[in-house]
């Protein structure tokens, strides 16, 4: 593990989701979903219990459907690596209201802390840059996280950030597991009660 990986994933997530306003959030399978829940379970957060590799594309579908709302995909390095091609798909669509933020601990945290490709130099931020993301950066200090937070709301993207976090496993904070509930409460909060009649 590189020495740059020291940020606390829960502190990072709390900072990014502070004063979230009208932010819509997709939280990728595994620890990012627990992190988002630890920061406060929210009707307009869609935490994934499966669909590994799909978080960024769920974010794209949502961002296209809701161009006036900022959309944050908060996911892990392993999850994004499984859907790496989606960065090309997003780069082609260039949704200004979408940000993809990777909590990069360089490990598969849910399965025994095996190393991912980012532990061996694969540079996700460089890939996103090459795919045409407006801004793509690697963040190794909390000052960078604090500077990123308002940019999630600026709709000048698509943005990409790879945040180097420590490879620890804080206490699991689980969101609801019922996918139908997660979907319906998100739609009701975003679209109003008539969403149930669509």
């Amino acid at each position, binding site marked *: 593990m590189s020495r740059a990986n020291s940020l606390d994933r829960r502190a990072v997530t709390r900072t990014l989701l502070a004063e979230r306003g009208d932010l819509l959030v997709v939280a990728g399978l595994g620890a990012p979903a627990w992190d988002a829940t630890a920061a406060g379970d929210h009707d307009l957060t*869609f935490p994934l219990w499966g669909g590994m*590799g799909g978080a*960024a594309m769920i974010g794209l*579908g949502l961002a296209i459907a809701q161009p006036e709302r900022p959309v944050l995909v908060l996911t892990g390095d392993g999850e994004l690596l499984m859907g790496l091609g989606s960065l090309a798909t997003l780069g082609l669509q260039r949704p200004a209201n979408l940000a993809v933020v990777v909590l990069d601990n360089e490990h598969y945290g849910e399965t025994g802390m095996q190393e991912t490709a980012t532990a061996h130099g694969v540079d996700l931020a460089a890939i996103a840059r090459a795919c045409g993301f407006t801004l793509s950066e690697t963040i190794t200090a909390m000052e960078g996280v604090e500077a990123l937070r308002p940019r999630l709301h600026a709709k000048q993207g698509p943005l990409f950030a790879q945040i180097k976090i420590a490879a620890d496993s804080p206490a699991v904070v689980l969101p609801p597991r019922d996918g*139908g509930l997660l979907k319906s409460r998100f739609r009701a909060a975003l679209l109003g009660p008539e969403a149930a009649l669509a």
Partner: protein
Amino acid sequence: MSARDAVDWPADIHAALSEAGLRQIAYVPDAGHARLIRLCAADAKMRMVPLTTEEEGVALAAGAWLGGERAVLLMQSSGVGNCINMLGMMEACRFPLLMIVTMRGEFGEFNPWQVPMGRATPGVLEQANVIVHRASEAASVGAVVAGAARLAFSSYQSVAVLLSQRLVGAKSFQK
């Protein structure tokens, strides 16, 4: 043009998608979808989302529905195999999903590498709890797609329309 070809079934699919309010058109290209893709791209109400692999389109459809829009996924049968795990998410969340699949590996196929996935496609989809409709006659394609769209979006199901290779035409490299 023979009488059998006289029905412009890609135009009928486009009309059915338009009528059903499909807005996000996700696709991995297939020769059999080429005319439909052109028609959708020329439709100002439709947003084209070309994919690098088919399961991206399943996830896109989930996000579209969360945001209040409808997406359709166009692909050939070889792409169905790429979608399987992501289909589980659609069932677990009762997301609607409409897929239109051009079949390879059946009538008149010349590429043996297309045959295994083509033959497995209906069974694999059904094993994944996707409702499978088959469209083989040009005149009925539009109605089949319209019914599939209604089933998907009004009953929150994953529905695939398989366009038979006999309908689409077997690919030839002899031109």
